[in-house]
């Protein structure tokens, strides 16, 4: 099966409140998928449903080919979950924390001590392995929590707000770790976050969720294309454009606006197809072009556009 996660019409209600509303989504194996949304949007509930610790009110979902309603225990043995708070036993040492979870996840007894040592080494925690976790910094706790989630070598990792409350250096360390997990080991990562920089850096595709409803799914560039047809293009002419170039550009119907920014000519064009047309036109006037770059919309712009009601037509990968 190509997909690590298949969700169809998944719904979860708490009393009168619908926390997850008819969610449809597919996440491919090896993909880093980011579920973005404000606090209370339904991200954590989605993880809980997919990890089989919460029962859906309606709809169905498969994780690694297993049904969340009937094979929850098998799913839990094959996925790793990093919760929003590290959930570590502060009165135990890091090694004892990992040994406990190794037993709970059924890591073979004969390999468990070495496996614990290996992950401690890999995450740079060996020198503090015998210290009580209560003495750890926030960043170290989060790293240990990731280590715990990886101890049984899961094929799929759910990360719920992995950098929340961390200082920039610790957050950077955690995101580097996540990036490496997907690049080196080919693990599927399902990342829940409201940190847009983190999502931009890590995710192949994103989904935007609000009030339990999935508003949009796709790669950030794909979503931007759906949201905005117009494109900003930067043209480096090593200075101001000549009068000839300026007049020619002003006459082109596909160029909607123009200005200088940071020593570069910035043009707003009707769509991507207009870019080679503009470049050819400038070259035709013997203007020298030193660089051309289509300016991409940031994930922040995309996110707020979607949250503000700009709905891309793209759906999940169905």
């Amino acid at each position, binding site marked *: 099966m190509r997909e690590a996660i298949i969700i169809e019409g998944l719904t979860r209600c708490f009393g009168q409140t619908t926390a997850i509303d008819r969610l449809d989504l597919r996440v491919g194996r090896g993909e880093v998928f980011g579920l973005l949304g404000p606090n209370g949007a339904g991200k954590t509930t989605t993880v809980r449903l997919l990890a089989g610790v919460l029962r859906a009110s309606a709809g169905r979902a498969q994780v690694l080919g297993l049904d969340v309603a009937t094979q929850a225990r098998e799913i839990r043995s094959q996925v790793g*979950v990093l919760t929003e708070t590290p959930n570590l036993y502060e009165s135990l040492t890091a090694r004892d924390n990992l040994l406990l979870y190794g037993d709970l996840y059924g890591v073979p007894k004969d390999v468990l001590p070495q496996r614990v040592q290996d992950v401690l080494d890999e995450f740079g925690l060996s020198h503090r392995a015998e210290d009580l976790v209560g003495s750890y910094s926030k960043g170290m706790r989060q790293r240990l929590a990731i280590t715990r989630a990886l101890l049984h070598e899961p094929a799929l990792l759910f990360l719920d707000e992995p950098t929340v409350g961390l200082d920039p250096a610790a957050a950077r360390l955690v995101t580097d770790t996540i990036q490496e997990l997907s690049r080196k080991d080919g693990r599927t990562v399902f990342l829940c976050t409201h940190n847009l920089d983190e999502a931009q850096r890590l995710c192949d595709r994103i989904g935007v969720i609000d009030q339990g409803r999935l508003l949009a799914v796709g790669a950030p560039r794909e979503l931007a294309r759906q949201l905005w047809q117009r494109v900003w293009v930067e043209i480096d002419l090593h200075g101001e454009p000549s009068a000839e170039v300026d007049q020619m550009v002003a006459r082109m119907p596909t160029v909607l606006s123009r200005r200088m920014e940071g020593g570069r000519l910035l043009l707003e064009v009707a769509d991507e197809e207009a870019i080679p047309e503009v470049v050819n036109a400038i070259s035709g006037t013997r203007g020298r072009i030193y660089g051309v770059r289509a300016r991409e919309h940031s994930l922040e712009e995309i996110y707020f556009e979607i949250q503000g009601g700009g709905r891309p037509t793209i759906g999940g990968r169905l």
Partner: protein
Amino acid sequence: MSWNWRAIWAIVRKDLKSVLKNKMVWLPMVLVPASLSVVLPMVTFILPSLFGPPTAETEDLAPLLEQIPAHLTSQIAGLSDLQQLAVLSSSYLVAPLFLIVPLIVSSVLAADSFAGERERKTLEALLYTPIADLELFVGKLLVGLLPAAGISLASFAVYSLVVNLSGYHIMRRIFFPTAAWWPLVFWVSPAVSVVGLGTTVLISSKVKTFMQAQQASGVLVLPIVFAMIGQVAGLFFMDTGLLLIAGAFVWLLGIWLIWIAARTFSRRELIARI
């Protein structure tokens, strides 16, 4: 369902290790048994002997001795009044108090294991592991039951030693334990642990903190206090027959409470409350 005992024992080990690191939890488990098995018998036997000849006190105790049921008087026939008092106070009057040991130990540990786990925000990660709900429940029950049984037995051994040593100047022989203590220790006491566990687990599911769970489960001491008052007032005496019958009722109550607790212990319910 095949039981994952490795995971169950991992839970037990983890909780017991955590308990040893938490003074709030282990302190009552040390103080209560020490007070009942060491301090109480010493106060009962040694202090009175420091304040004058033993015979001076027995006149005041005559009404109490008169309340003893006929079948018990045969057990203490031939003893002096003071010796009778020694046997009655150490063997019968204190007997209900001894039940506080398994009750306190099991309820403190259950409160820490169930409510404490949620209070420390460590429960969620545990619920994401493959351990089954029932295995997790059994592991947490054992965390309360095993130490309660161990500490009760140890308290009984220490109490026997201290009673015989401190009462030797009155009895001039080893006189404890009496017959009624065997069903008390091996039949009623484990049943009381089970009731303590079942009640505290149910309370823990309704409260947010270890302290709230522990305080609410403190109400369990009341029946023991009433039993002691009942004995002193001469309403009944805890002999072997009464203990066997009472133990059976306590077992039934404990099993019923655990059954209800097990039915309500579901990770899907627990995670919804985190």
